[in-house]
């Protein structure tokens, strides 16, 4: 009785179904999340985006009012563009470190931040506290922004020196915290007093630096801060555990290194391919471009197959062979003579043609 050890389809499925199932769940989950969150996130509060969540409309509006809008994406670019005539709008303050945010606050004459939370709030506005979150809806200003009228705004609420729109807009000295970006978006800009509020917030100075932070900016800011490597974060107790792991590795090495008996050596027979000499001769022909020798060999091979077909004696003279072939095929004698006994070819191309001509001739004689 024999037992097959190669896996069949059932075994493969049994072994693979768990990973496949996990992979499917992850994939479906990812698709569902993407669909649920879909769309709106693309190009949010981007002065060049025309999606509903984008802000190209307000950027155009500001430009029409004579404000220069500069869109920047890196920390260095912000620092380069800041001067006494700039407003800076930060769309994602959470992506910057508190140090970076307070640096900006100190340098920029007018700063607008959208939805800062946690450490970002005191870094931007020391006398402001974060309160909670509300849904965007139509709110009344009830403060210095009265002129703008009601606006659609929501998001994070704050408590600070100047509290407007139910706390979703707070002004602390020259810094304005905005609960969310609803009034700036293409979708909502033409509703209520959103446009007026946006222009008042962003159009105070001749230049607006529209800063869309990226995640690498925090790292850039950290370089001058107190950066700690990953190793500094490991509690010292685990260094000793690592020492014990090293001992384990040594034991594993000792386990794998010890063989169950030595390797068995065996003298193997010499492998010589029988066709090697012939192939060597072919290479020699080629290297020496010995088209004459090659043609001679091919012609002799063809003649030796022709002779029995023609019923000639094996030592028949060339003239007799030519004549006989010409008679059999109806080809002109000179033509046959050129193929079988003509001058040797000089080029490889001519040799290839000669080989084909010889084949054709042998076929013709064979088929007649």
């Amino acid at each position, binding site marked *: 009785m024999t037992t097959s050890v190669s896996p069949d389809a059932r075994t493969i499925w049994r072994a693979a179904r768990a990973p496949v199932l996990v992979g499917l769940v992850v994939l479906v989950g990812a698709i569902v999340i993407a669909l649920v969150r879909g769309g709106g996130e693309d190009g949010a509060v981007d002065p060049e985006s025309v999606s509903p969540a984008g802000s190209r409309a307000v950027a155009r509006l500001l430009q029409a009012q004579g404000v220069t809008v500069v869109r920047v994406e890196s920390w260095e670019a912000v620092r380069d563009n800041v001067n006494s005539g700039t407003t800076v709008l930060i769309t994602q303050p959470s992506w910057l470190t508190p140090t970076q945010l307070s640096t900006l606050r100190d340098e920029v004459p007018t700063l607008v931040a959208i939805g800062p939370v946690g450490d970002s709030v005191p870094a931007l506005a020391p006398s402001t506290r974060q309160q909670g979150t509300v849904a965007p809806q139509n709110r009344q200003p009830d403060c210095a922004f009265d002129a703008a009228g009601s606006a659609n705004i929501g998001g994070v609420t704050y408590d600070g020196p100047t509290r407007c729109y139910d706390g979703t807009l707070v002004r602390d000295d020259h810094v304005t915290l905005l609960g969310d970006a609803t009034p700036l978006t293409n979708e909502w800009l033409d509703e209520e007093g959103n446009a007026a509020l946006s222009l008042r917030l962003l159009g105070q100075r001749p230049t607006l630096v529209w800063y869309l932070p990226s995640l690498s900016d925090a790292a850039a800011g950290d370089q001058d801060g107190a950066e700690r490597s990953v190793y500094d974060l490991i509690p010292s107790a685990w260094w000793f*555990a690592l020492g014990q792991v090293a001992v384990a590795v040594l*034991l594993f090495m000792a386990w794998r290194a010890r063989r169950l008996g030595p390797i068995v050596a065996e003298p193997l027979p010499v492998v010589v391919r029988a066709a090697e000499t012939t192939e060597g001769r072919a290479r020699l022909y*080629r290297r020496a471009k010995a088209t004459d020798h090659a043609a001679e060999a091919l012609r*002799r091979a063809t003649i030796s197959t022709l002779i029995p077909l023609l019923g000639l004696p094996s030592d028949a003279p060339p003239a007799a062979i030519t004549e006989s072939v010409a008679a059999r095929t109806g080809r002109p004698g000179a033509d046959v003579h050129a193929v079988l006994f003509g001058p040797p070819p000089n080029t490889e191309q001519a040799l*290839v043609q000669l080989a084909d001509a010889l084949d054709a001739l042998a076929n013709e004689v064979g088929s007649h």
Partner: protein
Amino acid sequence: MAISGRAGLLALAGALVVGLLIPSWSGIFLVTGLILIAMVIDLVLAGAVHRLEFTRGGAQSVRLGEPAAVTLTVRNPGRARVRGMVRDAWPPSAGASDRHRLDIPGGGRQTVTTPLQPTRRGDRMAYRVTVRAFGPLGLAARQGSHTVPWTVRVLPPFTSRKHLPSRLDRLRDLDGRLRTLARGQGTEFDSLRSYVIGDDVRSIDWRATARSSEVMVRTWRPERDRHLMVVLDTGRTSAGRVGDIPRLDASMDAALLLAALASRAGDRVDLIAYDRQVRASVQGTSAAELLPALVNGMATLQPALVESDAPGIVAEVMRRSRRRSLVVLLTGLDPDPLEQGLLPILHTLTSRHLVLLAAVADPRINEMAQARGDAEAVFDAAAAARALQEREHVVGLLRRRGVEVVDATPEDLAPALADAYLALKAAGRL
């Protein structure tokens, strides 16, 4: 000694202990020390391996390509249990699955079977038996090796035996035992019987007819009790690989089919393998023991990378067979060795014996000769054509000296050689 993966796992678990409870150098030393002590205890309690006793059994010979099994019986004379693994090591070409689990109580015995699937012809010798016996904790093991000699002889596969039934049928046709009485010149007189219509009138024995009241004809049967001398050339030309196997193996296959056929036909078969000395010799064996003797003799033959000594071969053949024999030379048809070695002294052989030369042709050469298309292919074709012409030339020379030549590819050689033998027999030329 040897340790197991458990020791490493234990040390890894110890890393948690060190990290959570005793994060210090002394913690590392403590945990490692405990593991080492456990390993030493395990080692002390493990069964002794150097006193184990081994006996072997099972296959001693196997045809190439067929599976074999060798058993190994392990006896544990000590009191401690021997639990672990045993490796019955064989050379790689024996194709052994050599690892087995072992669990023998004190004073007990266990038999493990090592399956072999040899991939080359020849003698395969068992190398060593290595035992690894773990202690009760399975952390550390004692390990030791023993030499337990055993040899499995891997015989030639004789794949051409599938051609034997059809050749035996043709032999019976010759024999007249089953069907018509084959008649030809050179067959032996067998008996007289009365004439029936349809008999060849030339076979009427007039003298017997005169003595009897009816017309008598002679009946004939093919000659029997002839002598065949098969010569395997194991020199360098036999080392060339045609397809997957060396020429020597193809020659052996052909020799085996010929010997099987000839011994059924009532002829005696001897074999020598020769390059510069006699490598194998089978002589004067009875028909029943011939094939086993041949495969045994051939099993260990390997091609030698030396030029064959043609005069030596001829002298050896002449010495061994005084009466007329069919000498079957299984060699190459390479022009140089033949023209310089065999041809000049061939007449001494042909003067007394009938010589049949069988050679393995390479299908690759024919393939190359057909190649066309680019310059490289045509140069290949030219070189192959040249090689074929040289071969043809040598065959012509041999035939002119009265030597029968069989030149066939490895698959066709054995049946072609058998057919050539049957043709000679039918013609009564033996």
